[in-house]
């Protein structure tokens, strides 16, 4: 009797890369449909000619276009390589569709379709295919596409009146009142990205994906935690009126649930290929991204910092990967303690920067040096 041999092991666990992609696919479809429905109820800004249903249709159109264009590009690439066997079943379409949908979900409703198409082309081609396809890229292709659109077509993508913008104005002396909490949770408001609004749905998907092990709680969880701690710290320094915490809570809450914070936690930062690979580096990465995001939010010209932050995180991923050599309890302890200290320090630091007191100090130092 002859036997075939192969290298052990002869058993593997039931996890598979495709299963994870598929779970993600499912969640994205879910979020997309939800976005279409929610948009049908979002009040349109004054002075525009279209109505709610038009808006809903626009979202639908964007999502379809995004997915379609992404698939077409991958298909063309496979054709040029002379191997299209991957597209014989639905399996091959899952990953391109995911990318396309994500790009569409990350753009605002006002986005002209041609901008979206360009964003997808740039994201999929320059962000993914050039590097060799899924599994090889350095930057998250979704964000490459989105940042391209944001930078090149910023005038076409102007959105006003998002909660974060109001918050920023409040920080610079304007007034800010938390209006309708329920609307904020359901996602009925104008936002920078069509998919990012519904906190309830995103939380639901977050939990689901964590259980399915598609996203790594150590990245997403620590990211959220850092944002929470930092926004609380910053809020405490800037909005604390003795005996009244509502300003602090308001600031923290808006930072947590509006903007792309949750969306990023679910779909962007724990995208495995462009994030680090070990326990400790994942923690460092999450903190770096969160800190950068907060920095952009309070100081930068943009209201939303996450796209830059994650891309920056991707950029330094090879570097962070190199910093950790072992993944034992000692390294873990060291990393966690340093990260906690850094986060606490930075939240206080940022808080004071915002208050202006530090910039005064800097100004005076600068003055002394001159």
């Amino acid at each position, binding site marked *: *009797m*002859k*036997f*075939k*041999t*192969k*290298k*052990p*092991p*002869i*058993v*593997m*666990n039931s*996890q*598979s*890369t*495709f*299963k*994870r992609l598929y779970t993600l696919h499912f969640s994205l479809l879910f979020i997309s449909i939800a976005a279409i429905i929610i948009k049908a109820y979002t009040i349109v800004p004054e002075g525009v000619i279209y109505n709610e249903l038009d808006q809903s249709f626009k979202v639908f159109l964007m999502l379809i276009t995004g997915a379609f264009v992404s698939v077409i590009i991958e298909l063309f690439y496979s054709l040029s390589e002379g191997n299209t066997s991957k597209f014989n079943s639905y399996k091959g379409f899952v990953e391109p569709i995911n990318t396309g949908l994500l790009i569409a979900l990350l753009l605002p409703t006002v986005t002209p379709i041609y901008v979206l198409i360009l964003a997808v082309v740039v994201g999929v081609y320059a962000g993914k295919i050039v590097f060799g*396809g*899924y*599994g*090889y890229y350095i930057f998250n292709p979704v964000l490459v596409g989105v940042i391209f659109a944001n930078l090149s077509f910023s005038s076409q993508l102007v959105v006003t009146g998002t909660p974060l913008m109001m918050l920023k104005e409040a920080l610079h002396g304007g007034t800010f009142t938390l209006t309708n909490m329920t609307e904020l949770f359901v996602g009925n408001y104008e936002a920078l990205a069509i998919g990012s609004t519904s906190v309830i749905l995103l939380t639901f998907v977050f939990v689901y994906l964590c259980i399915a092990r598609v996203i*790594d709680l150590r990245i997403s969880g620590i990211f959220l935690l850092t944002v929470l701690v930092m926004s609380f710290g910053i809020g405490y320094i800037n909005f604390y009126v003795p005996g009244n915490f509502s300003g602090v809570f308001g600031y923290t809450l808006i930072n947590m649930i509006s903007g792309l914070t949750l969306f990023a936690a679910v779909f962007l930062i724990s995208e*495995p*290929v*462009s*994030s*680090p*690979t*070990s*326990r400790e580096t*994942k923690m460092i990465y999450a903190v770096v991204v969160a800190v950068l995001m907060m920095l952009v939010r309070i100081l930068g010209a943009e209201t939303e910092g996450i796209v830059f932050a994650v891309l920056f995180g991707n950029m330094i991923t090879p570097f962070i*990967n*190199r910093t*950790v*050599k*072992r*993944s*034992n*309890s000692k390294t873990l302890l060291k990393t966690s303690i340093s990260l906690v200290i850094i986060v606490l320090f930075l939240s206080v630091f940022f808080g004071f920067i915002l208050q202006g007191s530090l910039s005064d100090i800097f100004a005076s130092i600068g003055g002394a040096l001159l």
Partner: protein
Amino acid sequence: MITEYRTFLNPKKVYLPLTDVDSKIAKVLVEKEDRVLVGQIIAYKYNGQIKTPILSTVSGTVVGFADKIDRYSKNVDHIIIENDMLNETTELKNYRKLGAKSQPRNFVHNVTTYEGIISTAQVRNKLRDLGIDKVAVDGLYTPLKFSATTKHIVINAIFTNEPFISTDYETIIHHAEAIADGICLLGIAASTESLTVIVDKFMPAEALEELGKAIVDKNIDLVTIDVKRVKAWDYKVIKKLVKKDLSFNLLDDGVVYTTINAALMTHNAIRKGLPVTSRQVAITGDGLNINAVYDVRIGTPFTDLVNDLEGYHEVENMNLHIGSFLSGIQLDSDDFSITQTIDTINVSEYREVEEDVCIKCGDCNDICPAGILPQNIMDAELRNVNLRIVDLDTHLCVECGLCTYVCPSKINVLEWVRRAKRRVG
């Protein structure tokens, strides 16, 4: 699924390999047509200065020598003995506990018995004379080698194969006392007090109770683990004992790590004077009609067992795997015989697994019991950067295979780590 317990103690012929992976030179003491007895030394094998006896496991006639593959898929000389089914033993020497009564069953024998307290040297010599020190199976397990630096004895009562096949609890239930005594004897041999038995949280109550009764007031620690969660428990337990990263060879860390079976063999050797003539082997897999745990005579050709299990399934391609599912070895032929170092054999349908690209999820990094980063090592190996491979402490890999087991892309991460290890080592 294991459905039966069987015994196969009377093969027509036994095939005993004369050399093994370490001991490559053999000196045969018998000739064709010689009659040999159970426990008679028929050859010595040498690993440099170290001489290990090869004992006959049946009584009968030497009918010849043959080139056959052994369980490591190497072609080695085997001695063939025809079994006369009389089970006559050579003179056995045993050390009886004061007042204890013990009689080897199933054998026609003459026994010389020493009574009283047994010394370290006596146990060690006995184990060596009977060739039991080489009883190690694959994986982390070590041979029963003792030295001045030996500090801990760890006995695994659970898995021959984490976590898919459990040891047969029948053995534990029936031989609890003997096992406990064997563990104590190993402790004497190593002159250490640190005796640890690893048991499963979900072990059948009866087995646990018997074992518990036997080891109580013998100063043996019991560590319970949860085998439902795959995570190289033995590594973790031992690491806690020695309080540092483990070496590839646990003996270097002063640990002797072995199985319940070896404890039982030790007991049999010392108390009954018996050499290892049989051992427990779990035979599983969807390629066979029946799966069973065997008490099988050492030297039995595997094909005899297959016949006893009513043959193979009619499957086109099969593979044959010996030892741990995660790190064992595969043979291309079933023409080998059972040795003391086989604990499990799996015959199953050959399934090609398609590898995806590494998605850098880090699952392999998380599971690695040695706390190294297999994904990063694989990356470094792909890019040929030796410095980084050294930097990542690649030598600490104990080749447990868990990294491959968890990989969602089904990449053979262990193979890459091995390659990296070979490159720098």
